[in-house]
């Protein structure tokens, strides 16, 4: 079956522009996570959605970052007024439900480069 997909796979933008990154989770998965991975750094949690509950936004690094999940499926991560330090690989993952006992299925990531 289809796994988690993300688009675009690569995004190059100029400093100050807004970008939108998309994630299509596995059908039926109620939990969706966004992470950021910089070179030589670990996975940095950004936000997660679980069903109809309010998302946990505690990992978003600034108010320039936001995310939404429409209809409990597709999610979009938006970065406004991008900065060079936003350059990283943005990974999306989904799981059957939120919970530390559930494995997470990752997409291939979107590599964001801010010039």
């Amino acid at each position, binding site marked *: 079956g289809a796994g988690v997909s993300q688009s675009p796979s690569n995004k190059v933008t100029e400093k100050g522009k807004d970008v939108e990154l998309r994630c299509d989770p596995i059908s039926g998965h109620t939990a969706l996570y966004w992470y950021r991975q910089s070179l030589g750094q670990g996975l940095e*949690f950004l936000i997660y959605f679980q069903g109809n509950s309010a998302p946990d936004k505690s990992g978003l690094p600034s108010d320039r970052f936001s995310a939404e999940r429409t209809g409990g499926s597709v999610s979009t991560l938006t970065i406004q007024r991008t900065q060079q330090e936003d350059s990283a690989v943005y990974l999306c993952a989904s799981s059957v439900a939120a919970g*530390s*006992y559930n494995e997470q299925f990752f997409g*291939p990531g979107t590599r964001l480069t801010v010039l």
Partner: protein
Amino acid sequence: SQKIEQNSEALNIQEGKTATLTCNYTNYSPAYLQWYRQDPGRGPVFLLLIRENEKEKRKERLKVTFDTTLKQSLFHITASQPADSATYLCALTSNNAGNNRKLIWGLGTSLAVNP
């Protein structure tokens, strides 16, 4: 402060040998610990999950141990193959209520299996 540590140096071993990777943590009381594999340019892939009350878990050539006294998990790959070459990540969650839905990730250890 809370910390997860994995061997920062790459591990090089000969094909057929057993690879052992270490994940140490401090100031956590994890309920679950997971191991993932990450290949270059791809998202992590789940391998094994072990619970705090389990000492050992096996899956084919993989074995994970969890010592809550030492605050350490060991990940073993027996009869290693060049195809096992990748970065291996450990991730855990605290069993603190309200914070048990997010995984905290180590930086990963790079494994190279030489033919």
